């Protein structure tokens, strides 16, 4: 156990403890280190101006440890999530020259200058980092891959076209990884000593005579994590933190006891057995996306539009579930597929970890209310990969196609046998306090033939089973219309695909 965090920024070591651990990375960079190239606009992970690289220690294929770099939004990463990592900011990209102003730009920077990719320049460091991240990951730079890689960065000036021009002009063939500018070996050697030790830090602040205690814990084993949850009852669990950190930035919550899952490698596992897929609760969307690409293309499509690269690199499926939003993008899928969550628990003075599985629709009790004990932690999510004969379609309607919180979501899974609907699973999100299965409509569909009238009628029925509200994203009328139309859309799409298949 140690009481400090260690992190490297652009190759320089920083030992952090006490209050500092409770800072966002962007604040630490800007206010403490004076690295003001990283900008903060929204403080909620929606604009990408604060994009930096984080290199986390991972085992490589040869069994050694190396930094594994990804782009992240530094405004919603607190330092307790970044122990034993190497942060590279925009200041770390260029190679030093004779003077600071004569230093050499990297390929992305040069392309952005030449193509007129910046106007006011405020979003530019973020774009440069995201684009460099694409080069680091050896992505092919095509118009569509560039758009995907830069979905998490907003620009108000350029209309993006010249930014795309810049990316397209880059010769990726002899790109030299930025990581080579730093002495990774020395950093890793230094960190290795601490990497396997948990971090526990507590401190107290006093303001106008009122004292408040804070603590954060970064365990290296699940058992420790569960013991901590057992011992404390107001624990805020942070995995990717892509929602919790936003709530904290916006002062909607003010936690003082943090359990950071950063070092729990055992929760990062994914395995598929007998068509059952098990996803550890620390598995990020980026990892899951890769797996679903082949296994569950319908879910893959949702993951693609669901968030930016920076968010997907940190956020987790389990986080999306426990956040308990009725418009959580993964839920309609998990509902129609009857996914289950694994909740783990430990008793004090016992070495055992107790586990129980809960059906996803039993996991939610009401708006933002979960069936989980304060001592429990989600450790896994599992489901059976849908059969090929099941027709599965997932829908996400949002104001903006990409990186937007949904107005309405739906999952529809139909099994047809001998020309009739044998089984129908429907789940709608954004139409009530929790994601809803629609048993009446499911019953109605059972035994019917696949025709347009049936699905139109099903749409009418669906509206009677839901009570959407009007809010900032949409009116209840719009949500009702969507609920009505989506089943019709499902049918038309199915019909069109079938016709196409026949024609082929």
């Amino acid at each position, binding site marked *: 156990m140690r009481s400090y965090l260690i992190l490297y920024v652009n190759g320089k070591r920083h030992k952090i403890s006490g209050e500092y651990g409770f800072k966002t990375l962007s604040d630490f960079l800007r206010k403490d280190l*004076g*690295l*003001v*190239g*990283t*900008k903060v*606009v*929204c*403080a*909620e992970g*929606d604009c990408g101006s604060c994009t930096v690289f984080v290199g986390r220690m991972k085992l490589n294929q040869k069994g050694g440890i190396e930094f594994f770099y990804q782009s992240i939004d530094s405004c919603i990463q607190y330092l307790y999530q970044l122990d034993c990592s190497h942060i590279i*900011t*925009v200041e770390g*990209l260029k190679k030093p020259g004779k003077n600071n*102003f004569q230093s050499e730009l990297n390929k*992305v*920077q*040069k392309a*952005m*200058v030449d193509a*007129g990719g*910046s*106007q*006011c*320049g*405020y979003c*530019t460091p973020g774009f440069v980092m995201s684009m460099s991240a694409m080069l680091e990951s050896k992505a092919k730079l095509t118009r569509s891959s560039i758009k995907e890689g*830069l*979905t998490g*960065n907003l620009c*108000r*000036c*350029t*209309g*993006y076209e*010249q930014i795309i021009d810049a990316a397209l002009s880059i010769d990726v063939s002899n790109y030299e990884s930025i990581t080579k500018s730093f002495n990774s070996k020395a950093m890793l050697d230094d960190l290795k000593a601490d990497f396997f030790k948990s971090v526990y830090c507590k401190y107290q602040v006093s*303001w*106008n005579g009122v004292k408040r205690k804070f603590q954060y814990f970064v365990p290296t084993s699940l058992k420790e994590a569960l013991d901590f949850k057992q011992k404390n009852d107001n624990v805020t669990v942070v995995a990717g933190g892509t929602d919790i950190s*936003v709530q904290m930035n*916006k*002062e909607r919550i003010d936690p003082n006891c943090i359990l950071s899952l950063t070092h729990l490698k055992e929760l990062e596992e994914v395995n598929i057995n007998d068509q059952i897929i098990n996803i550890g609760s620390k598995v990020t969307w980026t990892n899951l996306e890769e797996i679903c690409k082949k296994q569950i293309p319908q879910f893959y499509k949702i993951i693609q539009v669901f968030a930016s690269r920076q968010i997907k690199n940190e956020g987790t499926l389990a986080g999306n579930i426990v956040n308990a939003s009725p418009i959580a993008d993964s839920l309609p899928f998990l509902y129609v597929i009857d996914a289950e969550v694994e909740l783990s628990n430990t008793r004090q003075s016992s070495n055992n970890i107790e586990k129980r599985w809960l059906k996803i629709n039993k996991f939610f009790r009401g708006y933002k209310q979960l069936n989980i004990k304060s001592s429990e932690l989600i450790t896994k999510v599992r489901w059976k990969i849908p059969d090929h004969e099941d027709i599965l379609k997932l829908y996400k309607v949002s*104001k*903006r*196609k*990409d990186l*937007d*919180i949904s107005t309405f979501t739906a999952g529809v899974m139909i099994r047809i046998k001998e020309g009739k609907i044998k089984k129908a699973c429907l789940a709608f999100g954004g139409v009530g306090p929790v994601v809803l299965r629609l048993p009446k409509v499911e019953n109605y569909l059972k035994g019917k033939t696949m025709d347009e009238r049936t699905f139109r009628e099903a749409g009418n029925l669906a509206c009677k089973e839901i009570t959407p*509200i*009007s*809010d*900032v*994203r*949409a*009116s209840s009328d*719009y949500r009702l*219309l*969507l609920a009505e*139309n989506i089943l019709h859309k499902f049918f*038309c799409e199915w019909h*069109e695909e079938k016709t196409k298949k026949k024609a082929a």
Partner: protein
Amino acid sequence: MSIVGRPVPHDSAIGHVTGEAQFIDDLTSSKNELIVDYISSPFAHGKIKSINSEELSLLDGIVGVFTCKDIPGHNLYGPVIKDECFLAEQIVEYVGQPIAVIAGESSKAVRNAKKQLRLIIEEFKPILTIDEAIKAKKYLGKSSQFKQGDFEKAWKESDHKLKGTFVCSGQEQFYLESQSAIALPGEQGEITINCSTQNTTEIQEVVAEALGLSFHKVICICKRMGGAFGGKETQAVLPAVMVALVASKTNRPARIAYTKDDDMRSTGKRHPYKIHYKVAFSSKGKIKGLKFDIFSNGGAYLDLSNAVMERTLFHSDNAYFIPNLIFNGTVCKTNFPPNTAFRGFGGPQGMANIENVIEEIAISLNKDALEIRRTNCYLRNNNNVTPYGQKVVNHLLPEIIDKLAEKSEYNQRKKEIEEFNKSSNTQLKGLALTPMKFGISFTTKFLNQGNALVNVYKDGTVQVSTGGTEMGQGLNTKVRQLVAEELNISYDDVLIMETSTEKNSNTPPTAASAGTDLNGMAAIKAARKIKNNLIEFASCYFSSLKKGIEPSVESIKFEMKDKGITEIYDLRFPEKRITFRDLVGFAFMDRINLGERAFYKTPKINFNRDTAKGEPFYYFTTGAAISEILIDRFTGVLKIERSDLMLDIGKSINPGIDRGQILGGFIQGVGWVTNEDLRYSDKGELLSYSPTTYKIPNIQDIPDVFNLETIENPYHKINVHKSKAVGEPPLMLCLSVWIAVKHALSFISKGTIPQLNLPATGEEILRRITELEKISKYGKKNNYSSNESEVSLVCNTLISPEKKQVA
């Protein structure tokens, strides 16, 4: 080889990509600096009963809490009419209106202290919409009217008439750098303000007035802005006054940087509009008469609303000749933050309205809309008088429309779309070509001036300062090119310095797309003066080298050689040459003036407000765009498949920067007409106050195919290097997207004019599809309600941090 006309990169581009380019909140904190924030009204309308400001000021880490009583000068301001308080006195008139300023040692202390706020306000019922304001007779400033011919006669005599209502919502500027300012106290009450502002002079004056100082004791500096788009033309004043007040009260440096949330909640936006129209036209679609009753939602105070409304009137004709017309413009007072400048400045709303009318004429006559547009388009020699009497001359509007239609295969694609819409019952397509004509000059005449200071140093390098501010638009790059060209020296030897009232006084805001026109011309004039000084000196210098040769300024030549070295020689014996650097050095020794300031004012322009006639614009920037869109019939979700833009921007000073301005302006406009949806609670609180809920276009939203072409205009012979302003005009090309949606909707119920509010969000589109499908099925008439609101209200309130503390 001329530097003007070359696509040199933005002059801060390297700073941008390395993160070295600094914005206000990036500036290093000085010792003792205080963090400033403000306490604002949680209600749209009410009376302040009490605030525990003294109690707050005693909390740990808090240095002061200041209310209107602490303002040493006067508390009233406003760019045109002083009707707004820096800090609310008794009445609050919008959510987010500053009531008190709080200064502390750290942002944490300030945040903590704000949680101890006890603010008691007696809540009044707010007025939020234009209709409510009209009912209550709440207006801002005077109404204005444009008139031409005899509308009533044309209306009476015409066989073809339409009337209806056009409704559009506002738009948040969404500059990425939020409002921010730093104040540094000086000696004897002097103060320096670093501010993210389009208008350094106004900051200087307003801060002086608030603090009770004379203007010469205040300096305002702006190096650059992280975007502004009009949002920092007048509204950078509040943060500047806040930090100035703290600095003057505490004698310590003070810094404020709004959070994005606070910025969006408390600052003004593009005006929402509601326009009732009547149009009379011939069977061929020629407009005979037009009447527009135009209302804008001005917010709580006047700000620039009258000027914005005036520009709406100036652009309600867009590119069309209208023989008989009445345009009435009225600004309504409501309980929102005062709406303000935003790229286009009232033009987009006026142009959207008439494009809507034209599309409806086409649908009602079952004719092609492009034909109607072309029929009514301004010509060069006749049919060229605007509603305000100015002739549109030297333009290429008909040619642009024809060429663009041809190049983008309008007719062919229109047929394909008709076929597509017949065969698909899941998707809808639409296509529209809309022209754009935008008047260049401030319509307030005195603002059309600029001054510049050029200093040549002894090594031949040059610093230029103008009153123009850099907000990303590339003003500094262009001025740098112009000065380098004028002095015939290397671009690298010229630097543009930060904007400061210390160097450039009494300047207008950098706005109205006129930044380069005014400041570029002034800088050229200053450089020319220095060059003349140098030529005169050089003529003497060279004549002294050769006996019997008289000095001749005409024979002195500047020639740029390789590696950016400029050589000067006398034509009569070109073998004797000196470098620019040497010439400058010698000139200094001979006591020649190497620094000059110059002044420029736009010639000709004039507008008589009493008669509403005149020539307010020096020239027009024109263009057109064609967009094709695809709609999902089940969800209303919209996708832009292709956009082609064509503009006449004269001879471009920097084609790279102009291209960026055009494409960026277009996409910004696309945001306004599609997904940027400001939603408020029915208490007047903005609910979509951050990028989570307010969706500006992201990279996935740009058209799949996106083409831009500029065309040469041989008739255009005025303005700096025969260029044209390019800042605002391209934004209005976005109307092609919105009209394309309307076109798509017109296929659902043939012959029915589809109503479409702006923005065309998925929700709006699906609502209209459903409406039209019902009409198509049950044959009902589309009875469009003129009660539709330009403000999107949701019956659900927000619990703002301030509100929690309201007793």
